[in-house]
């Protein structure tokens, strides 16, 4: 890197799409020699700050996101909030991701903090690659450097996804009670929101399969068959992933954050159409924490064990 180029630090909120595309982001900045800093893992304080800052009616995940942004204020030159709109005409994002950057800027209007974005909107002729190239250029790197950094980052992301699928394949081959959990990565992988649920299963000795640990292309095809007009890319991956894994699981959990727009509909469709597998719907609400959830998980496991004739 040029010696005279002032080193900058980019803050990344550890929430929402970080759990889906964070590897690309970090690898992209790293390849360009830009320092990144992550907000701390979600905790009560971050959640409460997020609730305070957000519109009351927004989803739990978006509230958590605002808490993470708050935690990064003043700790970096820019806070990075890419705008994800579409990958193709039939692969779009929930409008919340289209508006997240501008919503955040408006919520933190009185703060001197600067924000950084890039616009992934293939429907309007800006692919992910184009967006990251433009982002690199806006930070003073050449188009070529930026494009190369993106390619490298993408590869890393794909390798990581592949490894997750491979690990799950291995787990699925083992004997034991298997539960398929369908939920957005930003819920499942969040240490404050989803982790207690994952821990519960781990401790109960069940094998946990995640719908999002799937080959993304195969998932999209599978979703197309099950629900042809579903166009949210993240729902496609989840619904498709669920279709691909469900036959190897004994029960399925649909985990959602209140009041997730896409989940409110796709989870209903799955509940209605899938008759051959026991389904448990779980909705996480701000502040409700895990109160009562444990009881529901336990009884769900009991029912499945009972059905299988294994000891309760």
């Amino acid at each position: 890197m040029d010696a005279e180029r002032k080193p900058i630090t980019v803050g990344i909120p550890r929430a929402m799409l970080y759990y889906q595309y964070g590897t690309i982001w970090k690898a992209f900045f790293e390849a360009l020699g830009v320092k990144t800093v992550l907000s701390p893992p979600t905790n009560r304080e971050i959640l409460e700050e997020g609730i305070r800052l957000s519109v009351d009616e927004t989803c739990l995940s978006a509230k958590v996101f605002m808490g993470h942004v708050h935690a990064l204020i003043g700790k970096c030159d820019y806070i990075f909030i890419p705008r994800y709109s579409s990958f193709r005409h039939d692969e779009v994002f929930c409008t919340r991701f289209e508006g997240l950057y501008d919503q955040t800027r408006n919520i933190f209007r009185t703060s001197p903090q600067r924000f950084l974005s890039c616009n992934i909107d293939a429907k309007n002729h800006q692919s992910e690659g184009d967006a990251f190239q433009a982002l690199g250029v806006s930070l003073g790197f050449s188009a070529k450097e930026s494009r190369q950094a993106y390619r490298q980052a993408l590869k890393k992301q794909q390798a990581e996804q592949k490894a997750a699928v491979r690990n799950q394949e291995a787990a699925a081959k083992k004997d034991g009670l298997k539960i398929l959990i369908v939920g957005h990565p930003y819920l499942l992988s969040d240490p404050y929101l989803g982790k207690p649920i994952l821990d519960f299963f781990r401790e109960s000795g069940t094998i946990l399969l995640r719908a999002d640990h799937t080959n993304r292309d195969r998932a999209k095809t599978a979703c197309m068959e099950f629900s042809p007009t579903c166009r949210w890319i993240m729902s496609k991956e989840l619904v498709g992933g669920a279709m691909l894994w469900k036959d190897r699981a004994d029960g399925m959990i649909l985990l959602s954050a209140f009041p997730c727009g896409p989940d409110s509909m796709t989870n209903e469709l799955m509940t209605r159409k899938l008759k051959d597998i026991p389904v448990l719907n779980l909705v996480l609400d701000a502040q409700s924490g895990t109160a009562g959830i444990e009881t529901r998980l336990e009884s769900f496991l009991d029912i499945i064990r009972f059905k299988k004739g294994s000891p309760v």
Partner: protein
Amino acid sequence: MKQSRKIALPRYAEYNCAMKYVVEQGFESKCILPPPLTKRTEELGAKNSPDFVCTPFKTTLGSMIEALEAGADTILMVYGICRLNYFAELQEQILRDLGYQFDFINLSQFNTGKKKDFLRAVKAINPNTNAAKLTKAFAETVRMVEHLDEITGKYYQVCGFDPTRESRLIYRKFLSDMYAAQTLADIEESYRTARRSLAGLPLQKPADPLRVGILGEFYTVMDAFSNLEVEQKLADMGVEVHRWMNVTNSMLRPGGKNHQIQIMERCEYSMGANSTTDIWQAQTFAQMGFDGLIHIKSASCTPETDIMPVLANLSQDYKIPILYLTYDSQTSDVGLMTRLEAYYDMIEIRKKAAV
């Protein structure tokens, strides 16, 4: 043979007259009008819908059930740029689970906007469609929608200042004419009559009445039943009510890019669905010196929830109070009235204090 289809679309504001016109004149099929929306429609919809889906999903589902009860054998459902894109597929599943027998034409399958998709949609509705007739009917339907929007807008601006209440009769007559229209001549004649009659009304209007701009989520802001007639209620208090959002402005003459440029400082990108035009409307009303703004949305509407921080900043910058109304199937008339009355009092006292 599918020629004797009895097609129905769920109720949506007063636009069903236009849908009826294009189905009958363009596709030469029979159109079944579902009964006007009532509490029953809402309850039927809410009972059979997932809990935290938005209210328009529930209301349109209820209207589909009532259309099937009224004898429709085919349901036609449109698509949009938010959850609306997915309404049709889930609604069809729910109706099938309820045991109804019907054909379902889900236009969301044909949403690329390409000509090929359009032709496939036409074929799905009626394979024997006459292209010339359809083209003519489309053009005429556009006229009808433009007239409907113009007369509706005029009506809400005058009805609060019309002591004889004649405007109500004029508007009602115009609507029933639109539902009965069979030719372009029918449409044009009723339009001219309504426009002339509304313009000729003797009004009792203060020189500087309170002006309120209404904006918000596509379905609820336009559908008088769903928003508990918020426009009529305000007009009855003597407020000049302005609403930019209608099908003509948002779909027939879209100004998306231009709107985005005008609000660039508040919002760099589209925040999804109608967010850009919404913010632009709020800004325009504020710049025009309106006394207040009312933001309307159904419970859990994602894009409209997300623009609230933008609107809050705009409200501060222009010192214009915004009343936020969230509707779900439990929202009551009495609760709305209390909020509207208080809002009216506040902007009236503010206006007097400013003078």
